[in-house]
Protein backbone atom coordinates (compact mmCIF):
# COMPACT_ATOMS: atom_id res chain seq x y z
CA UNK A 1 0.00 0.00 0.00
CA UNK A 2 1.67 3.22 -1.14
CA UNK A 3 1.23 6.55 0.60
CA UNK A 4 -0.89 9.10 -1.20
CA UNK A 5 1.05 11.85 -3.03
CA UNK A 6 0.64 15.46 -1.89
CA UNK A 7 -0.61 16.50 -5.33
CA UNK A 8 -3.22 13.71 -5.55
CA UNK A 9 -6.90 14.69 -5.30
CA UNK A 10 -8.76 12.10 -3.24
CA UNK A 11 -12.50 11.52 -3.57
CA UNK A 12 -15.07 9.16 -2.10
CA UNK A 13 -15.25 5.87 -3.99
CA UNK A 14 -18.21 5.33 -6.26
CA UNK A 15 -21.21 4.33 -4.17
CA UNK A 16 -19.83 5.74 -0.88
CA UNK A 17 -21.67 8.65 0.73
CA UNK A 18 -20.79 10.79 3.72
CA UNK A 19 -23.67 12.18 5.73
CA UNK A 20 -24.36 13.59 9.19
CA UNK A 21 -26.64 11.49 11.38
CA UNK A 22 -28.40 13.67 13.92
CA UNK A 23 -29.84 10.64 15.74
CA UNK A 24 -26.35 9.41 16.64
CA UNK A 25 -24.76 12.89 16.48
CA UNK A 26 -21.93 11.76 14.24
CA UNK A 27 -20.87 11.62 10.62
CA UNK A 28 -21.50 8.27 8.95
CA UNK A 29 -20.19 6.68 5.78
CA UNK A 30 -22.85 4.79 3.85
CA UNK A 31 -22.24 2.22 1.11
CA UNK A 32 -23.98 -0.91 -0.21
CA UNK A 33 -25.03 -3.00 2.80
CA UNK A 34 -22.77 -1.12 5.18
CA UNK A 35 -22.32 1.78 7.60
CA UNK A 36 -19.00 3.04 9.01
CA UNK A 37 -18.61 5.70 11.67
CA UNK A 38 -15.49 7.81 10.97
CA UNK A 39 -13.82 9.57 13.88
CA UNK A 40 -13.88 13.39 13.97
CA UNK A 41 -10.50 13.76 12.24
CA UNK A 42 -11.42 11.38 9.42
CA UNK A 43 -14.81 13.08 8.98
CA UNK A 44 -13.15 16.51 8.68
CA UNK A 45 -10.79 15.15 6.00
CA UNK A 46 -13.57 13.30 4.17
CA UNK A 47 -15.71 16.43 3.91
CA UNK A 48 -12.96 18.01 1.81
CA UNK A 49 -12.41 15.02 -0.49
CA UNK A 50 -14.10 16.30 -3.64
CA UNK A 51 -11.73 14.90 -6.28
CA UNK A 52 -10.45 18.44 -6.95
CA UNK A 53 -8.64 19.55 -3.78
CA UNK A 54 -5.16 18.03 -3.40
CA UNK A 55 -3.83 16.54 -0.18
CA UNK A 56 -1.70 19.67 0.32
CA UNK A 57 -4.77 21.88 -0.13
CA UNK A 58 -6.88 19.75 2.21
CA UNK A 59 -4.17 19.95 4.87
CA UNK A 60 -3.89 23.73 4.39
CA UNK A 61 -7.67 24.16 4.68
CA UNK A 62 -7.79 22.08 7.86
CA UNK A 63 -4.85 24.10 9.18
CA UNK A 64 -6.95 27.27 8.87
CA UNK A 65 -9.72 25.65 10.93
CA UNK A 66 -7.78 23.73 13.56
CA UNK A 67 -4.49 24.14 15.31
CA UNK A 68 -1.60 21.74 14.86
CA UNK A 69 -2.70 20.05 11.60
CA UNK A 70 0.25 18.31 9.97
CA UNK A 71 0.15 17.23 6.35
CA UNK A 72 1.61 13.84 7.34
CA UNK A 73 -1.40 13.20 9.59
CA UNK A 74 -3.77 13.97 6.73
CA UNK A 75 -1.85 11.60 4.47
CA UNK A 76 -2.03 8.87 7.11
CA UNK A 77 -5.78 9.30 7.50
CA UNK A 78 -6.30 9.13 3.73
CA UNK A 79 -4.11 6.07 3.38
CA UNK A 80 -6.15 4.30 6.05
CA UNK A 81 -9.41 5.34 4.37
CA UNK A 82 -8.12 3.97 1.08
CA UNK A 83 -7.38 0.64 2.78
CA UNK A 84 -10.97 0.58 4.02
CA UNK A 85 -12.09 1.19 0.40
CA UNK A 86 -13.74 4.49 1.31
CA UNK A 87 -11.64 6.90 -0.80
CA UNK A 88 -9.70 6.64 -4.04
CA UNK A 89 -7.39 8.89 -6.07
CA UNK A 90 -5.79 8.88 -9.47
Amino acid at each position, binding site marked *: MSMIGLDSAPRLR*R*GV*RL*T*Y*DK*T*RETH*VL*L*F*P*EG*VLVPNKTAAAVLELCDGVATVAEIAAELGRRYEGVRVEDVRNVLTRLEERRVVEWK
Partner: protein
Amino acid sequence: MEVTAHQPTAQPPLGMLAELTHRCPLHCPYCSNPIELVTRENELSTDEWLDVVGQARELGVLQVHLSGGEPLARHDLPVLVSRAADLGCYVNLVTSGLGLTEERLTDLVDRGLAHVQLSVQGADAETANRIAGVKAHAHKLKAAQAVKELDIPLTVNVVLHRANHHQVADLIALAERMGADRLELANTQYYGWGLRNRSALMPTAEQLAEAEPIVRAATERLRDTMQIVYVVADYYSPYPKPCMYGWGSRQLTVAPNGDVLPCPAASSITTLTLDNVRSRNLADIWYRSAAFNAYRGEDWLPDPCRGCSRKGIDFGGCRCQAFLLTGDAGATDPVCSLSPDRGLIDTILASTPSEPPELVMRQNTIKVV
Protein backbone atom coordinates in the same frame (compact mmCIF):
# COMPACT_ATOMS: atom_id res chain seq x y z
CA MET B 1 -35.41 -6.28 44.68
CA GLU B 2 -36.33 -4.98 41.23
CA VAL B 3 -39.40 -2.80 41.08
CA THR B 4 -39.54 -2.24 37.34
CA ALA B 5 -39.85 -4.72 34.54
CA HIS B 6 -36.52 -5.26 32.83
CA GLN B 7 -36.40 -3.85 29.30
CA PRO B 8 -33.38 -4.86 27.26
CA THR B 9 -31.68 -1.71 26.00
CA ALA B 10 -31.78 -1.33 22.25
CA GLN B 11 -29.72 0.78 19.89
CA PRO B 12 -31.42 2.66 17.03
CA PRO B 13 -31.88 0.51 13.90
CA LEU B 14 -29.43 0.98 11.01
CA GLY B 15 -31.64 -0.37 8.27
CA MET B 16 -35.24 -0.70 7.15
CA LEU B 17 -36.42 -3.27 4.65
CA ALA B 18 -39.51 -1.66 3.11
CA GLU B 19 -41.51 -4.36 1.36
CA LEU B 20 -43.61 -2.00 -0.71
CA THR B 21 -45.74 -4.71 -2.28
CA HIS B 22 -45.98 -8.47 -2.58
CA ARG B 23 -46.96 -8.16 -6.24
CA CYS B 24 -44.26 -9.59 -8.51
CA PRO B 25 -43.93 -10.70 -12.12
CA LEU B 26 -41.76 -13.68 -11.10
CA HIS B 27 -42.87 -17.01 -9.63
CA CYS B 28 -39.68 -18.10 -7.84
CA PRO B 29 -40.45 -21.23 -5.79
CA TYR B 30 -38.18 -20.08 -2.92
CA CYS B 31 -39.72 -16.61 -2.60
CA SER B 32 -39.13 -15.11 0.84
CA ASN B 33 -42.62 -13.59 0.90
CA PRO B 34 -45.17 -15.48 3.00
CA ILE B 35 -47.54 -18.00 1.42
CA GLU B 36 -50.41 -15.67 2.40
CA LEU B 37 -49.53 -12.64 0.31
CA VAL B 38 -50.82 -9.14 1.06
CA THR B 39 -53.20 -8.05 -1.70
CA ARG B 40 -53.01 -4.70 -3.48
CA GLU B 41 -56.05 -3.27 -1.62
CA ASN B 42 -54.31 -3.86 1.70
CA GLU B 43 -51.04 -2.15 0.79
CA LEU B 44 -50.06 1.07 2.56
CA SER B 45 -50.86 4.23 0.59
CA THR B 46 -48.23 6.61 -0.76
CA ASP B 47 -48.79 9.01 2.14
CA GLU B 48 -48.49 6.20 4.66
CA TRP B 49 -45.17 5.02 3.15
CA LEU B 50 -43.84 8.60 3.06
CA ASP B 51 -44.68 8.88 6.75
CA VAL B 52 -43.03 5.52 7.51
CA VAL B 53 -39.82 6.62 5.76
CA GLY B 54 -39.82 9.86 7.78
CA GLN B 55 -40.40 8.02 11.05
CA ALA B 56 -37.66 5.53 10.18
CA ARG B 57 -35.10 8.26 9.56
CA GLU B 58 -36.12 10.00 12.78
CA LEU B 59 -35.57 6.70 14.58
CA GLY B 60 -32.04 6.41 13.15
CA VAL B 61 -32.45 4.33 9.99
CA LEU B 62 -29.61 5.03 7.53
CA GLN B 63 -30.11 2.30 4.95
CA VAL B 64 -33.49 2.02 3.24
CA HIS B 65 -33.98 -1.12 1.16
CA LEU B 66 -36.95 -0.73 -1.17
CA SER B 67 -38.08 -4.25 -1.89
CA GLY B 68 -41.13 -6.43 -2.41
CA GLY B 69 -42.37 -8.38 -4.36
CA GLU B 70 -41.27 -6.12 -7.14
CA PRO B 71 -40.99 -2.52 -5.89
CA LEU B 72 -41.29 -1.20 -9.46
CA ALA B 73 -44.90 -2.39 -9.36
CA ARG B 74 -45.57 0.63 -7.12
CA HIS B 75 -46.04 3.71 -9.27
CA ASP B 76 -45.11 5.92 -6.33
CA LEU B 77 -41.61 4.40 -6.12
CA PRO B 78 -39.98 7.64 -7.42
CA VAL B 79 -41.43 9.82 -4.65
CA LEU B 80 -40.46 7.25 -2.02
CA VAL B 81 -36.88 7.23 -3.34
CA SER B 82 -36.83 11.04 -3.22
CA ARG B 83 -38.11 11.18 0.34
CA ALA B 84 -35.61 8.63 1.67
CA ALA B 85 -32.69 10.19 -0.20
CA ASP B 86 -33.62 13.75 0.80
CA LEU B 87 -33.62 12.66 4.44
CA GLY B 88 -30.03 11.42 4.04
CA CYS B 89 -30.67 7.69 3.77
CA TYR B 90 -28.71 5.37 1.50
CA VAL B 91 -31.39 4.07 -0.84
CA ASN B 92 -31.17 0.55 -2.22
CA LEU B 93 -33.55 -0.91 -4.81
CA VAL B 94 -34.03 -4.68 -4.56
CA THR B 95 -35.50 -5.70 -7.90
CA SER B 96 -36.16 -8.49 -10.39
CA GLY B 97 -35.10 -6.02 -13.09
CA LEU B 98 -38.41 -6.42 -14.93
CA GLY B 99 -39.68 -2.96 -15.71
CA LEU B 100 -36.33 -1.36 -14.88
CA THR B 101 -35.93 0.57 -18.11
CA GLU B 102 -33.08 3.01 -18.65
CA GLU B 103 -35.60 5.85 -18.45
CA ARG B 104 -37.07 4.77 -15.10
CA LEU B 105 -33.66 4.05 -13.65
CA THR B 106 -32.27 7.43 -14.74
CA ASP B 107 -35.16 9.15 -12.96
CA LEU B 108 -34.62 7.09 -9.78
CA VAL B 109 -30.87 7.82 -9.77
CA ASP B 110 -31.58 11.54 -10.28
CA ARG B 111 -33.79 11.34 -7.21
CA GLY B 112 -30.99 9.83 -5.15
CA LEU B 113 -31.12 6.06 -5.61
CA ALA B 114 -27.66 4.85 -4.52
CA HIS B 115 -27.51 1.10 -5.21
CA VAL B 116 -29.34 -1.62 -7.13
CA GLN B 117 -29.64 -5.25 -6.08
CA LEU B 118 -30.70 -7.38 -9.03
CA SER B 119 -31.90 -10.95 -8.67
CA VAL B 120 -30.61 -13.60 -11.06
CA GLN B 121 -32.16 -17.08 -11.11
CA GLY B 122 -29.68 -19.03 -13.23
CA ALA B 123 -26.54 -18.75 -15.37
CA ASP B 124 -28.31 -19.27 -18.68
CA ALA B 125 -31.68 -18.11 -20.00
CA GLU B 126 -33.25 -21.56 -20.07
CA THR B 127 -32.46 -22.42 -16.43
CA ALA B 128 -33.13 -18.90 -15.19
CA ASN B 129 -36.50 -18.61 -16.91
CA ARG B 130 -37.57 -22.04 -15.69
CA ILE B 131 -36.83 -21.08 -12.07
CA ALA B 132 -38.39 -17.61 -12.40
CA GLY B 133 -41.44 -19.14 -14.09
CA VAL B 134 -41.35 -16.39 -16.71
CA LYS B 135 -39.04 -15.19 -19.48
CA ALA B 136 -37.09 -12.76 -17.33
CA HIS B 137 -33.41 -13.43 -17.98
CA ALA B 138 -32.93 -11.18 -21.03
CA HIS B 139 -34.62 -8.29 -19.18
CA LYS B 140 -32.15 -8.73 -16.32
CA LEU B 141 -29.14 -8.50 -18.62
CA LYS B 142 -30.54 -5.23 -19.99
CA ALA B 143 -31.30 -3.91 -16.50
CA ALA B 144 -27.73 -4.66 -15.37
CA GLN B 145 -26.41 -2.79 -18.38
CA ALA B 146 -28.56 0.23 -17.53
CA VAL B 147 -27.26 0.23 -13.94
CA LYS B 148 -23.66 0.13 -15.13
CA GLU B 149 -24.25 2.91 -17.67
CA LEU B 150 -25.50 5.14 -14.85
CA ASP B 151 -22.39 4.19 -12.88
CA ILE B 152 -24.01 3.24 -9.58
CA PRO B 153 -23.04 0.14 -7.58
CA LEU B 154 -24.65 -3.14 -8.61
CA THR B 155 -25.16 -6.20 -6.43
CA VAL B 156 -26.28 -9.43 -8.10
CA ASN B 157 -28.35 -11.64 -5.81
CA VAL B 158 -28.55 -15.36 -6.51
CA VAL B 159 -30.50 -17.87 -4.44
CA LEU B 160 -28.77 -21.26 -4.69
CA HIS B 161 -30.64 -24.58 -4.59
CA ARG B 162 -30.60 -28.04 -6.10
CA ALA B 163 -31.62 -26.88 -9.61
CA ASN B 164 -28.86 -24.26 -10.04
CA HIS B 165 -26.12 -25.19 -7.57
CA HIS B 166 -24.05 -26.88 -10.29
CA GLN B 167 -23.93 -23.51 -12.10
CA VAL B 168 -22.05 -21.66 -9.39
CA ALA B 169 -18.91 -21.06 -11.52
CA ASP B 170 -21.04 -19.83 -14.43
CA LEU B 171 -23.09 -17.61 -12.10
CA ILE B 172 -19.89 -15.97 -10.87
CA ALA B 173 -18.77 -15.46 -14.49
CA LEU B 174 -22.16 -13.97 -15.36
CA ALA B 175 -21.99 -11.52 -12.45
CA GLU B 176 -18.50 -10.50 -13.64
CA ARG B 177 -19.81 -9.91 -17.17
CA MET B 178 -22.66 -7.86 -15.73
CA GLY B 179 -20.07 -5.68 -14.01
CA ALA B 180 -21.37 -6.40 -10.49
CA ASP B 181 -19.57 -4.77 -7.58
CA ARG B 182 -20.99 -7.39 -5.22
CA LEU B 183 -22.36 -10.89 -5.66
CA GLU B 184 -24.52 -12.55 -3.05
CA LEU B 185 -24.65 -16.31 -3.42
CA ALA B 186 -27.21 -17.31 -0.83
CA ASN B 187 -28.29 -20.87 -0.24
CA THR B 188 -32.07 -21.08 0.08
CA GLN B 189 -33.58 -20.27 3.47
CA TYR B 190 -36.55 -22.44 4.28
CA TYR B 191 -39.50 -20.19 5.16
CA GLY B 192 -42.68 -19.48 3.23
CA TRP B 193 -42.40 -20.74 -0.35
CA GLY B 194 -38.90 -22.11 0.28
CA LEU B 195 -40.22 -24.32 3.08
CA ARG B 196 -43.07 -25.54 0.90
CA ASN B 197 -40.52 -26.56 -1.75
CA ARG B 198 -37.83 -27.73 0.64
CA SER B 199 -37.46 -31.28 -0.62
CA ALA B 200 -37.08 -30.05 -4.20
CA LEU B 201 -34.73 -27.17 -3.36
CA MET B 202 -32.42 -28.81 -0.81
CA PRO B 203 -28.98 -29.15 -2.41
CA THR B 204 -27.12 -32.41 -2.02
CA ALA B 205 -23.98 -32.67 0.10
CA GLU B 206 -22.04 -33.39 -3.11
CA GLN B 207 -23.29 -30.18 -4.71
CA LEU B 208 -22.19 -28.14 -1.70
CA ALA B 209 -18.78 -29.83 -1.59
CA GLU B 210 -18.25 -29.04 -5.28
CA ALA B 211 -19.34 -25.41 -4.98
CA GLU B 212 -17.34 -24.41 -1.94
CA PRO B 213 -13.79 -24.51 -3.42
CA ILE B 214 -15.06 -22.68 -6.54
CA VAL B 215 -16.56 -19.91 -4.43
CA ARG B 216 -13.47 -19.69 -2.25
CA ALA B 217 -11.11 -19.37 -5.23
CA ALA B 218 -13.31 -16.75 -6.92
CA THR B 219 -13.64 -14.74 -3.70
CA GLU B 220 -9.85 -14.52 -3.53
CA ARG B 221 -9.34 -13.87 -7.26
CA LEU B 222 -11.95 -11.09 -7.40
CA ARG B 223 -11.15 -9.50 -4.04
CA ASP B 224 -10.44 -6.06 -5.54
CA THR B 225 -13.22 -5.99 -8.14
CA MET B 226 -16.27 -7.95 -6.97
CA GLN B 227 -17.04 -8.78 -3.37
CA ILE B 228 -18.59 -12.24 -3.05
CA VAL B 229 -20.86 -12.96 -0.08
CA TYR B 230 -21.62 -16.66 0.32
CA VAL B 231 -24.51 -17.61 2.61
CA VAL B 232 -24.06 -21.23 3.67
CA ALA B 233 -26.68 -23.96 3.57
CA ASP B 234 -27.39 -23.93 7.29
CA TYR B 235 -29.05 -27.37 7.46
CA TYR B 236 -25.62 -28.78 6.63
CA SER B 237 -23.79 -26.57 9.14
CA PRO B 238 -22.87 -27.49 12.71
CA TYR B 239 -23.88 -24.03 13.97
CA PRO B 240 -26.77 -21.72 13.07
CA LYS B 241 -26.52 -18.46 11.18
CA PRO B 242 -26.40 -15.21 13.18
CA CYS B 243 -30.04 -14.37 12.61
CA MET B 244 -30.38 -10.58 12.06
CA TYR B 245 -27.19 -10.14 14.16
CA GLY B 246 -29.51 -10.21 17.13
CA TRP B 247 -33.29 -9.83 17.23
CA GLY B 248 -34.38 -6.19 17.20
CA SER B 249 -30.76 -5.14 17.03
CA ARG B 250 -29.96 -3.65 13.62
CA GLN B 251 -32.87 -3.81 11.21
CA LEU B 252 -36.64 -3.76 10.94
CA THR B 253 -38.94 -4.81 8.12
CA VAL B 254 -42.20 -3.13 7.17
CA ALA B 255 -44.54 -5.45 5.27
CA PRO B 256 -46.78 -4.14 2.44
CA ASN B 257 -49.74 -3.83 4.85
CA GLY B 258 -47.74 -1.91 7.46
CA ASP B 259 -46.98 -4.79 9.81
CA VAL B 260 -43.58 -4.22 11.41
CA LEU B 261 -41.38 -7.30 11.64
CA PRO B 262 -38.14 -7.93 13.55
CA CYS B 263 -37.06 -10.18 10.65
CA PRO B 264 -38.41 -10.44 7.10
CA ALA B 265 -39.77 -13.95 7.76
CA ALA B 266 -41.20 -13.21 11.22
CA SER B 267 -44.83 -13.35 10.09
CA SER B 268 -44.27 -17.13 10.03
CA ILE B 269 -44.06 -17.05 13.86
CA THR B 270 -47.76 -17.17 14.59
CA THR B 271 -47.23 -16.80 18.35
CA LEU B 272 -45.80 -13.31 17.81
CA THR B 273 -48.17 -10.34 18.08
CA LEU B 274 -47.19 -7.90 15.36
CA ASP B 275 -47.81 -4.17 15.51
CA ASN B 276 -48.76 -2.07 12.52
CA VAL B 277 -47.65 1.43 11.52
CA ARG B 278 -51.33 2.33 11.05
CA SER B 279 -51.92 2.03 14.79
CA ARG B 280 -48.54 2.55 16.45
CA ASN B 281 -45.53 4.81 15.98
CA LEU B 282 -42.42 3.14 14.54
CA ALA B 283 -40.14 4.20 17.41
CA ASP B 284 -42.61 2.86 19.96
CA ILE B 285 -42.74 -0.44 18.08
CA TRP B 286 -38.93 -0.65 17.86
CA TYR B 287 -38.24 0.12 21.52
CA ARG B 288 -41.34 -1.06 23.38
CA SER B 289 -43.38 -3.61 21.44
CA ALA B 290 -43.72 -7.19 22.63
CA ALA B 291 -42.59 -8.54 19.26
CA PHE B 292 -39.32 -6.60 19.19
CA ASN B 293 -38.50 -7.34 22.83
CA ALA B 294 -39.43 -11.02 22.70
CA TYR B 295 -35.96 -12.27 21.73
CA ARG B 296 -33.87 -9.14 22.18
CA GLY B 297 -30.64 -9.35 24.17
CA GLU B 298 -29.64 -12.52 26.01
CA ASP B 299 -32.14 -12.89 28.87
CA TRP B 300 -34.55 -15.02 26.83
CA LEU B 301 -31.90 -17.52 25.69
CA PRO B 302 -32.73 -21.18 26.33
CA ASP B 303 -30.30 -23.92 27.25
CA PRO B 304 -27.86 -24.87 25.80
CA CYS B 305 -27.42 -21.33 24.32
CA ARG B 306 -27.42 -19.61 27.72
CA GLY B 307 -24.08 -21.03 28.75
CA CYS B 308 -22.62 -21.31 25.24
CA SER B 309 -19.50 -19.41 24.19
CA ARG B 310 -21.06 -18.86 20.75
CA LYS B 311 -24.09 -16.94 22.03
CA GLY B 312 -22.46 -13.62 21.07
CA ILE B 313 -21.81 -14.97 17.56
CA ASP B 314 -25.13 -16.52 16.54
CA PHE B 315 -27.61 -15.26 19.20
CA GLY B 316 -29.27 -18.66 19.44
CA GLY B 317 -29.77 -18.80 15.66
CA CYS B 318 -32.93 -18.21 13.69
CA ARG B 319 -36.19 -17.69 15.61
CA CYS B 320 -38.33 -18.42 12.55
CA GLN B 321 -36.55 -21.71 11.94
CA ALA B 322 -36.90 -22.65 15.63
CA PHE B 323 -40.64 -21.99 15.46
CA LEU B 324 -41.27 -23.65 12.11
CA LEU B 325 -39.42 -26.84 13.01
CA THR B 326 -39.94 -27.20 16.78
CA GLY B 327 -43.10 -25.16 17.38
CA ASP B 328 -41.26 -23.00 19.93
CA ALA B 329 -39.79 -19.70 18.68
CA GLY B 330 -37.75 -19.48 21.90
CA ALA B 331 -35.93 -22.77 21.30
CA THR B 332 -32.35 -23.14 20.13
CA ASP B 333 -32.20 -23.14 16.34
CA PRO B 334 -32.47 -26.88 15.56
CA VAL B 335 -29.68 -26.51 12.97
CA CYS B 336 -27.24 -26.24 15.88
CA SER B 337 -25.38 -29.47 16.61
CA LEU B 338 -25.82 -28.66 20.33
CA SER B 339 -29.61 -28.38 20.02
CA PRO B 340 -31.68 -31.24 21.48
CA ASP B 341 -33.74 -30.98 18.25
CA ARG B 342 -30.87 -31.44 15.78
CA GLY B 343 -32.33 -34.87 14.94
CA LEU B 344 -35.16 -33.09 13.08
CA ILE B 345 -32.64 -31.61 10.65
CA ASP B 346 -30.74 -34.86 10.22
CA THR B 347 -33.99 -36.66 9.43
CA ILE B 348 -34.88 -34.04 6.79
CA LEU B 349 -31.43 -34.34 5.19
CA ALA B 350 -31.56 -38.14 5.26
CA SER B 351 -34.89 -38.08 3.43
CA THR B 352 -33.71 -35.79 0.59
CA PRO B 353 -35.12 -37.60 -2.46
CA SER B 354 -32.73 -38.93 -5.12
CA GLU B 355 -34.89 -37.28 -7.79
CA PRO B 356 -36.26 -33.87 -6.74
CA PRO B 357 -40.06 -33.46 -6.88
CA GLU B 358 -41.79 -30.81 -9.02
CA LEU B 359 -41.45 -27.23 -7.79
CA VAL B 360 -44.59 -25.44 -6.60
CA MET B 361 -44.24 -22.05 -8.25
CA ARG B 362 -45.24 -18.90 -6.37
CA GLN B 363 -48.73 -17.72 -7.34
CA ASN B 364 -50.47 -14.34 -7.39
CA THR B 365 -48.51 -12.40 -9.92
CA ILE B 366 -49.04 -9.38 -12.08
CA LYS B 367 -47.51 -7.82 -15.14
CA VAL B 368 -45.49 -4.75 -14.23
CA VAL B 369 -43.58 -4.05 -17.43
